[in-house]
């Protein structure tokens, strides 16, 4: 947040919120709305009328719909959360913006930069907020890493490594269901498109300028239902180099960001939550490595406990969704910039476009 945005805003708290799409990602959104003083859930929409009705009942919404145009006309919500498969985001966002609603869209907000530009122009014309969920930016380890970098504790950043490992073909998941293949396989980057926004915004968080992108798309598992099951890209910007990797064929789920600078290095893990920091400490250059190793051990133990607590408390990796939504609703109420700004969404989509261009070459 920061400068006043150019949107006109309705200060009517709690905002009347509607959710379109009641799949798995709707849970943290609905949970936030239920617990928040900023929002009242007024309607749920899903293609399945039964799921829409049940979700509405479960989260206390008075109405449910199986057609989003009916919802927009009947309920006229202040804020619409679009939580459907990516191919539908563009048309749903357009209709919600046209109806004068503030719109929060799950990633990816659009499939191309051009599609987003059109939506942004519409949002500006209607004087409403349009934003995309960059949830992992708001998880504690990434927030902490951002603070460390912004405070200059790592010196000048020269290297950024962002890696998502999401094994899809070692177990039964929705992306390897052959009986009813996920629509994600039809996305420009296949099912990797479901993850690519995270890779892009996490990279840009620590490497705001990208001059060149070289991407290598791989296919390790012949049974993969998408054209590719891996991505290994290098990016350059200013005096920094970055590496972006998506891995789906190896054991272990993780989301990691590693930043190296002239004065230190740090690595954040989203789940289980952990942050490692290796810099010159006040104990001096001789003892700093020992101090950092000792600290790593303590962090590892805390991370293990944190991971268990995270599971028991049902937070998972979606902790950041609540923070993102809380800040977004606050920005809608105040008229200040949204926590994920238009320029950041545009830059993320531009990087995704560049990564995908590498697929064609």
């Amino acid at each position, binding site marked *: 947040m920061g400068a006043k945005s150019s949107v006109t805003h309705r200060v009517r708290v709690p905002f009347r919120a509607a959710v379109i799409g009641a*799949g*798995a990602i709707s849970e943290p959104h609905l949970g936030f709305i239920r617990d928040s003083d900023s929002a009242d859930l007024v309607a749920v929409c899903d293609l*399945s*009328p*039964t*799921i829409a009705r*049940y979700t509405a009942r*479960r989260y206390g919404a008075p109405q449910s719909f199986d057609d989003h145009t009916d919802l927009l006309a009947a309920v006229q919500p202040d804020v619409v959360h679009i939580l459907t498969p990516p191919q539908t985001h563009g048309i749903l966002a357009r209709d919600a913006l046209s109806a004068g609603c503030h719109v929060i869209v799950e990633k990816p907000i659009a499939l191309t930069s051009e599609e987003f530009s059109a939506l942004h122009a519409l949002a500006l014309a209607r004087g409403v907020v349009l934003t995309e969920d960059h949830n992992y930016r708001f998880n504690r380890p990434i927030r902490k890493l951002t603070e460390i970098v912004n405070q200059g504790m790592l010196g000048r950043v020269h290297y950024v490594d962002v890696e998502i490992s999401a094994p899809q073909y070692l177990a039964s998941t*929705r992306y390897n269901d052959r*009986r*009813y293949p996920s629509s994600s396989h039809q996305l420009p980057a296949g099912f990797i498109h479901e993850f690519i926004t995270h890779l892009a915004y996490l990279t840009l968080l620590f490497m705001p300028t990208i001059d060149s992108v070289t991407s290598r798309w791989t296919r390790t598992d012949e049974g993969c239902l998408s054209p590719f099951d891996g991505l290994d890209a290098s990016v350059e910007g200013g005096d920094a180099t970055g590496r972006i990797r998506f891995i789906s064929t190896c054991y272990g789920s993780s989301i990691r960001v590693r930043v190296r600078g002239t004065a230190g290095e740090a690595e954040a893990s989203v789940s289980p939550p952990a942050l490692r920091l290796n810099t010159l400490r006040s104990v001096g250059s001789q003892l700093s490595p020992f101090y950092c190793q000792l600290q790593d051990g303590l962090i590892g133990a805390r991370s293990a406990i944190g991971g268990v607590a995270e*599971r*028991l*408390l*049902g937070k998972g990796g979606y902790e950041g969704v609540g923070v993102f939504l809380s800040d977004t609703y606050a920005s809608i109420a105040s008229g200040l910039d949204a926590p994920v700004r238009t320029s950041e969404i545009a830059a993320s989509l531009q990087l995704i476009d560049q990564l995908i261009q590498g697929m064609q070459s």
Partner: protein
Amino acid sequence: MRILVTGAGGFLGRSVVDKALVRGHEVVAFVRSMHGGIPFPWEGVSGLDIVEGDLRNPAALDGILSGIDVVVHLAAAKTGDLHLQMANTVVGTENLLRAMDRADVRSLVLLSSFTVYDYRAIPKGGIVDESSPTEARPEQRDAYTETKLLQEELAIAAASAGRCGVTILRPGVVYGPNEYWSGRLGQRLSPAVWIRLGGRAYIPLTYVENCADVVILAAEQINVGYRIYNVLDQTPPTQKQYVDRLREFVRPKPIVVTVPWSAALFAAQGIRLFNRLVLSDRLRVPGVLRVPSLHARGKPLRYTGARVRRELGWQPAVPLDQGMLRTFHPEAGHVSPSGSQP
């Protein structure tokens, strides 16, 4: 009669297809996959078409309901998170009912479950029959209960709207080859160590072939509106009796540790109180330690399936002793205790 059976490749589905063929019906067996799992024994059998498809995909039902007299709907997800079970069980049923409307199929037999009852609302020692209340707070139980209740709601709504006649069958614990364990008994820590949750509660067992018989009987007796039947064999055993019988067959013989149901309930109530007061209900407690689940699992209750015997004339043909023998194939020696857990 031409019968479409969804979930035909499953544990009960295979028996239902067999019984329907024996009774001289034509069968369309709708299976999720022709490959993987146990091969189907029906190759070349006359009167049978096997169709591969997924009910989540509306197009999978195109054309196959033409000429069908009755749909026997067994397909449902028993595992996976809420959203997976919603897609398979609820969206699948929505798609099926729409396809039945298009093809003008006017009769449905839906396989539900005893899970739908509100066990907290039934006092200890009370009788569970078809008039017992259904779970009012399914989100406090599990995804299976949530989705089976929604499936019933869909079928009842279709019947109430005059779209089709509906028979809902609620079996208790269906047992048979490789399927003999139930959460109502407790928890299997490993093949060798079983935790039995109490001992006095009755287990509403029905042998898989008995259950298949009643499914076919219901399919043959097309009705208007909807009717609901509990399905269980006569004289259900207690947990202790059933586990003792299992131990006669399972090798190596498992060690059974008994946890009194009321002690488990007391502990679950303590955890619930702590969660509410200290953690603002944020702790996700495993099912076996949750009060609503414990009521559904080990509470001493009595069960009746008198209505289905009276109205459909069903008599379980396979008694418990014979069911146990058939379950464990004694002619092939002992089996490993790795039967899948319902």
